[in-house]
Each structure stands twice: as C-alpha cells, then as structure tokens.
C-alpha cells in the first residue's frame, strides 16, 4: 500500500473525527447556557455510540456484499474479514461520516430531548436511515451509484439526509417552551466560531479525503472546499447585513453553508463555480430558516436550513456545474440527464429521510417519550438530564 495515500487517509479520518466535537461546540454555543453541556453531549455521545455500532454492524450494512442494490448484508459483522489495510482505512474513514451525520440531526431537537430517548434514537437512526443511503450512493451495486447520480463526499448521504431528518424531528418534537416569547440567542459566540473553525478544518479531510488518495482530485477538492467556504461566509454576512448588522454567528454559519454545498461537487467542479456555489449557499441558508420560522416550526439550530437546503442546492449544483473548471460529465450523459439524476437522488433522499425519521420518532414517542418535562426544560437540560451545569464561574 502506498505510504503517501495511507498517511493521507489516516490524517483525513482523524480530521473528520474532529468535526463532530467541533459540531458539538458549534451547536453548544448556539444553545442557551442552561443547555450548553447537554447540547455538546449530544455530539460527543454520538461518537461513542456510532463508533461502536459501526464496527459491529453499521459498516457491514452499508458496505457489505450488496443485497438488491438496497443494503449490505451482515457478513462483515464485527469487521469479520475486514483485515486488509485498504479495507480497514476505508472502514474507519467511512465510520467518521456515519458518526457526524446523526450528530448533525441533534441540532433540530436541541434544548428539549430526553437523554434516554436520544440514545435510542441515534442507534436506530444510524442503522435504519443512514446505512441504506450510504449503500445506495457509495457501495458497489448501490442503485443511485449505478443510476449515475453524483455525490462526491456526501451531499445526499450526509447533508440532505440529516437536514431533512431534522425537519421531521422539528415538526414532531414541537416548539421549545417560550419560543416566540423568550429570547433564545446563542450563549457563546466564540464557542460557535471555534466549532465552525474545527468543522472547516476537518472538512478538508471530509472532501479532499473522499478522493481516497493523495492525488489531483484530492487537491482540487481541497481548493474548491476552501473557496466555497469563504464565499459562503461572504454570502451569509452580506444577507445579515442587509437585514440588520453583519453577524458573527452568520460568518460561522455561512462557512458551514458553503462547505455543505460544495461537498457533493468537490471532485467535479473548479474554483470559479465553487465561488458561486458558496455564495448562493450563504444566501439560501440564511433565508431558509427564516421561512421555517414563519411557519413556526422550531428547528432549534437551523439544521434543515443549512444542511437540508444547502445540501440540496449542492447536489443540484453538482449537476449544473460538473466539468466546469474540473472533472467532466460521464461518457454519453448530457447535462440535462445528469441534472435529472441529481434530482432523483435528492428527491429519494428527502422522502426516505423524512419518512423513516418520522417513523422512528413516533415509535419512541409512543413508548418512552421524546421530550423532557416542562419543569426540566425550564431548568435546562444540563441540570435536569446530566446534573452538570455547563459553567460554574463562582465557586
């Protein structure tokens, strides 16, 4: 095995792992102080849970021998037969994607979910919702791959999937107490920016690592990833400025929006389209949550707006711009057809993520329940769920 590629993929895996605590800080800073620790816990705990689930059955379901183009079988349970370094690297790299995707969803029900319900949700969601989509898009024989839909680093699998799941969750959970009456402003702006910075840093591994080698495609993915992130910052900050004052949270959110949108396109477009993709993402992801707000749907940390809409825009843009500046349309596929393929991928993922997530949540709601009591919610999840206030400055 080539040492350069090995070094590269191991580093990328480490970078993607770092994204999830980064996400925890990003979300934690956006939450109110009384829920800060609990919100971070959602991300951190997801690492622990999915990290184990993945090596036990998750990897096998996603990348085990194909069953009807729909899912893998269980023959790789417990990594049986996953012994070659190549397989192991691919397994652990993919595992990091499986970890962050459910963690992204947690932003939708932040500040009101019962911890026990959360644990069950993560196990079910990654198993039932995530692994099939990962199989469709990336596994040999996966039907979306066969179809010809392009998703370089996870626009559908990771972002649309989590973003739409977040929409379902926001609707099913209902609004936080005091929504539209009390301020629910981010409690720690530096923490939000730090989280966004770690996400950006890790995203190089996420996108450039998806080339699965230290090659020209990795280099291009790296360049467009950074460019789109920068453009996303400009887009969101500009919007916030138009609607009020240039927002710091907006700069951080815009970077994430740009990164989300470039994810499926990173291996297929050059830097100029990347600027456009990022800019538009910054604008769309600023508007989307406001519209959702008008419908009084409480997607606490704007997961649908950023990942659902940003991911959808990115998947579409991949079809629109593939080959511009880098890459090329597949043999004998014209742009219209490609865009069609992209729309199919988008549509199917939307429906799948929404329906399956709803089923899981209703099941949990019917059994142990999803939300904490009103008193617990008012006290804050840090104390009520974990007995650990995030901060104790006077002691």
């Amino acid at each position, binding site marked *: 095995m080539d040492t350069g590629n090995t070094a590269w993929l191991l580093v990328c895996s480490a970078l993607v792992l770092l994204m999830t605590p980064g996400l925890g800080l990003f979300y934690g800073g956006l939450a109110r102080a009384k829920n800060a620790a609990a919100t971070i816990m959602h991300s951190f705990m997801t690492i622990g849970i999915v990290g184990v689930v993945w090596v036990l059955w998750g990897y096998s379901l996603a990348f085990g021998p194909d069953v009807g183009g729909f899912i893998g079988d269980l023959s790789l349970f417990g990594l049986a037969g996953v012994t070659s370094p190549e397989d192991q690297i691919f397994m652990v790299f993919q595992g990091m994607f499986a970890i962050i995707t459910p963690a992204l969803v947690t932003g939708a029900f932040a500040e009101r979910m019962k911890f026990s319900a959360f644990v069950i949700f993560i196990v079910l969601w990654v198993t039932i919702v995530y692994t099939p989509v990962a199989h469709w898009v990336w596994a040999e024989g996966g039907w979306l791959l066969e179809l010809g839909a392009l998703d370089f680093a996870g626009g559908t699998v990771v972002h649309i999937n989590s973003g739409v799941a977040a929409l379902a969750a926001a609707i099913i959970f209902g609004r936080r107490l005091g929504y539209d009456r009390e*301020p629910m*402003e981010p409690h720690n702006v530096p923490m939000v920016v730090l989280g966004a910075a770690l996400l950006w840093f890790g995203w190089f591994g996420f996108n450039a690592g998806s080339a699965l080698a230290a090659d020209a495609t990795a280099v291009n993915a790296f360049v467009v990833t950074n460019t789109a992130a920068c453009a996303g910052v400009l887009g969101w900050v500009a919007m916030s400025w138009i609607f009020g004052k240039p927002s710091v949270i907006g700069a951080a*959110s815009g970077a994430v929006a740009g990164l989300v949108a470039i994810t499926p396109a990173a291996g297929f477009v050059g830097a100029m389209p990347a600027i456009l993709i990022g800019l538009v993402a910054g604008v769309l992801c600023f508007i989307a949550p406001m519209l959702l*707000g008008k419908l009084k749907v*409480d997607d606490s940390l*704007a997961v649908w707006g950023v990942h659902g809409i940003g991911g959808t825009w990115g998947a579409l843009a991949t079809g629109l711009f593939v080959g511009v500046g880098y890459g090329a349309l597949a043999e004998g596929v014209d742009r219209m057809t490609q865009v069609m393929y992209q729309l199919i991928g988008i549509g199917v993922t939307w429906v799948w993520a929404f329906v399956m997530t709803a089923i899981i949540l209703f099941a949990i709601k019917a059994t142990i329940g999803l939300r904490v009591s009103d008193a617990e919610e008012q006290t804050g999840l840090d104390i009520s769920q974990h007995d650990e206030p995030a901060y104790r400055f006077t002691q």
Partner: protein
Amino acid sequence: MKKVEAIIRPEKVTVVKDALADAGFVGLNVVSVTGRGAQKGVVHTGRSGQHVVIDMLAKAKVELVVRDEDTEQVCQVIIDTARTGEIGDGKIFISTVEDVIRVRTGERGESAI
C-alpha cells in the same frame, strides 16, 4: 445615612464612578443586573427564524452609602453623568441605612462610611 441605588446603563458605569470619586465619594459597589422598564426592549430574529422581544436588558446597579446631607449631591452627580435623555437611562432609589460597620476596624456609623 442613606443608601443610594442607581440603576444605569452598563456603558455609563465608568463615567459615573469616576465622577463620584472626583466629587469625593470613593466607596461604592457595582452589581450587574438585567432590568425591564418603559424601554420595552428590542426585537431580535433568532438564527432559527423566530422573532422575539427581548424585554430584559443588561443594566448596572451602582450602590453606595452616604451621609444624609450628601445624598442630594450624589444623586445629582449620577444624574448628570448617567443621563442620555433616551428611555432606559434608569432610576435612583434612596433608602435609609441604620448603621454601618467597617469590618477592618469595627468602627460604626458615619465614620465607617
């Protein structure tokens, strides 16, 4: 002796405390509070889209105990320095303090202020 409690804009604390020192009133305490008043607060749009009226605003409470005869002057100094003329300038509350003790020496009464 009187206790003067002035609720003012946080950004005014420095000028107020310096003016008080210049006027010879060194001893005082400042507590950060959140306050609500006629100033009904600002409307914010949260990142997740909801609009909210923030009615509790950050204020600072400056507390000092002074001799009865100094009360008027102290209040005047505070008003002169803390006023902006905009709603939200705050209030001053005056109440009676029966006794003051200096912990260090055990002195009591006015001499302890």
